[in-house]
């Protein structure tokens, strides 16, 4: 009886192993025939190329492994920015689509239909090449608030130079910890005595006061470095100092968030509409305010519907960020599966590492979102 159950599974497993074995054997034989060596030793070799934008210090004297890290961090950076903005835009547009106001409703609908029906690569090209050409040259730019410079060569923003940055960070951590204690206390008080505590204003107060104290007594000091225009040639200029956000990063983040936001908006709309009308009416009938209805009754139920498909969108966004290679944003694909692959010729090694990396990134996002989904799921008693 058991054999009947196990045998097909064993056979499937065997077939899978055989297929993998065949492919790796085939690759091995072909590489041997063509005199291609195999190995991961190249990762420690000197990379001898530079990258235009990286979060960690990098130049050609660093190893290929560090080049991999540079690409990975850039991929994570653009994905995180994209996810944050896509979520904000998505939630706003999704709720706007449910609005009774005709203009808001239709504007949101047009936005969703327009952006989700144009291929992402075209949108990236549009934001990079078309929008880039419209930006001013460094010498023609008008500063925003006197310190921000949006130019064709990038967005130059002031940098903050910190003294004793660690103490400042500790003060913020301390503030966050005390806020969580306040919340626990407030909940207990409400459960026991039915008195509500103004948690929000206390939290904001803590977040302001503790860092200010660190400035006054902790020796924390911050000065601002404003970008300054610099002449390169008779007609060419750039900015020096401050932080430079390359136009490639901006266009990519913009394209990714605007595109993914349309899908998230639809998830949000589906989630809210998925909560039955009776729930809202029942909540209203026991005297909850419209805000409380949304916060305490509708959203907790809607989120259960919203989270799983939104997780897919986060995964898509992360994977889509690999289109960066088309517009010179130095992400994992451009730096590692591009330049490093070309310079070393280690196609199989590099492509396998890159695939594993995207796999791990996606699985991490999945695990986090599943955890969050479980946390907000209705706990049946």
């Amino acid at each position, binding site marked *: 009886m058991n054999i009947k159950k196990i045998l097909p599974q064993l056979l499937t497993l065997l077939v899978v192993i055989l297929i993998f074995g065949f492919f790796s054997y085939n690759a091995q034989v072909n*590489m041997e*025939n*063509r*005199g*291609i*060596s195999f190995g991961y030793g190249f990762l420690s070799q000197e990379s*001898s*190329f*530079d*990258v*235009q934008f990286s979060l960690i210090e990098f*130049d*050609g004297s660093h190893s290929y492994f560090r080049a991999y890290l540079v690409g990975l961090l850039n991929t994570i950076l653009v994905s995180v920015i994209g996810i944050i903005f896509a979520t904000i835009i998505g939630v706003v547009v999704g709720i706007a689509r449910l609005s009774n106001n005709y203009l808001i409703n239709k504007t949101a609908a047009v936005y969703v239909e327009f952006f989700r029906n144009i291929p992402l690569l075209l949108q990236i090209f549009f934001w990079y*090449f078309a929008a*880039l*050409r419209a930006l001013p*040259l460094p010498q023609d730019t008008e500063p925003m608030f006197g310190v921000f410079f949006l130019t*064709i*060569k990038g967005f130059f923003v002031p940098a903050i130079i910190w003294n004793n940055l660690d103490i400042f960070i500790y003060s913020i951590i301390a503030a966050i910890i005390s806020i969580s204690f306040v919340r626990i206390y407030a909940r207990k008080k409400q459960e026991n005595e039915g008195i509500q505590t103004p948690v929000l204003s206390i939290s904001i107060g803590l977040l302001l006061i503790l860092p200010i104290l660190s400035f006054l007594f902790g020796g924390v000091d911050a000065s601002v470095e404003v970008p300054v225009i*610099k*002449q*390169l*040639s*008779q*007609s*060419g200029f*750039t900015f*020096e100092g401050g932080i430079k956000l390359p*136009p*490639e990063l901006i266009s990519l983040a913009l394209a990714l968030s605007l595109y993914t936001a349309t899908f998230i908006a639809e998830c949000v709309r589906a989630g809210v509409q998925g909560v039955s009308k009776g729930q809202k009416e029942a909540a209203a009938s026991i005297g909850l305010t419209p805000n409380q209805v949304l916060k305490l009754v509708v959203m907790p139920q809607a989120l259960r519907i919203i989270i799983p498909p939104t997780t897919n969108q986060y995964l898509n966004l992360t994977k889509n960020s690999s289109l960066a*290679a*088309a*517009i*010179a944003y*130095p992400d994992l694909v*451009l730096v590692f599966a*591009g*330049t490093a*692959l*070309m*310079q*070393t*010729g280690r*196609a199989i090694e590099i492509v396998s590492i890159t695939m594993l990396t995207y796999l791990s990134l996606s699985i991490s996002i999945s695990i986090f979102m599943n955890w969050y989904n479980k946390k907000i799921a209705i706990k049946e008693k």
Partner: protein
Amino acid sequence: MFKYLKQLTSLVAMVAVLFTFTTETMAAKKSKTLKNTQKKGFVRCGVSQGLPGFSNADAAGNWTGVDVDVCRAVAAAVLGDANKVKFTPLSAKERFTALTSNEIDILSRNTTWTLSRDADIGLTFVGVNFYDGQGFMVRKNSGYTSVNDFKNGISACTNLGTTTELNMRDFFNSKGISYEPVTFEKADEVVAAYDAGRCDTYTTDKSGLAAQRIKLSSPDDHIVLPETISKEPLGPVVRQGDSVWEDIVRWSLNVMIEAEEYGVTSANADSMKTSDNPAVKRLVGAEGELGAAFGLDNDWSLRIIKQVGNYGESYKRNIADTGILPDRGPNELWTKGGILYVPPAR
């Protein structure tokens, strides 16, 4: 009696071993790539995605250029018709993988011959069909007249996955200039970004600069700086491990250069059969048995010269007459002050 039998067996064994050895070398002569090409009826050739003068497709999909002519020469030699070529446009990133994974049989795509490419990744370079070097293009109104005018913070646009990226670093490092490399996968995107003002300079092989300049919105507003910062010998590449095919491609190119040296052109090739010069007669197949060494007939080189022309004709047709680089520079014959010098075809 048994004594003789033993000797006889060893003799038979020896003959057998010798026989297998000879049949094996005969089989090796008939190269696998050559056999496949003749069976398919066309040469599979990897080219660029559009570099005027080297490999560029017109509106009708006809490919022209000096790199294209190498593949056409091979087709003329092994298939008898220079038009029996299937061109595959490849990005710099894809090119070597396409060759090693058997999608193409010749890579003729302005590819620089370097030690690591030749030795490490299963490729063999067969020769040089264009001697090039890396240069810089800048806007005329920048006032730059030399690379020595470059200042810290300059941004440079270039192609991804090329020797250009490495040379650029070596160059800026040696000058102690900090720079911003902006690398794109496709040449068209590099040109668009440079044209938009994203970069102060566009750097690649000088032939490439000359060819891509035509694509800018106002080509006359840009100049190529005089300095050359690297050696870029460009040439066709084949897979490692098929030495007969390697020889066919190498000598198809060499024959074109040698034909120019001896004044054999597509127009006069037939009449050269009666030439007094044995070297010329060998080139047009009237003397010697040169083709047999590759398993080809004796007219292989004559077909190359008649259908594709000699190197000078190819250069004039594709690079000089199109206004890309009218001056042949180092790509002139050694007898005329250049460095084109090929081993004799004999």
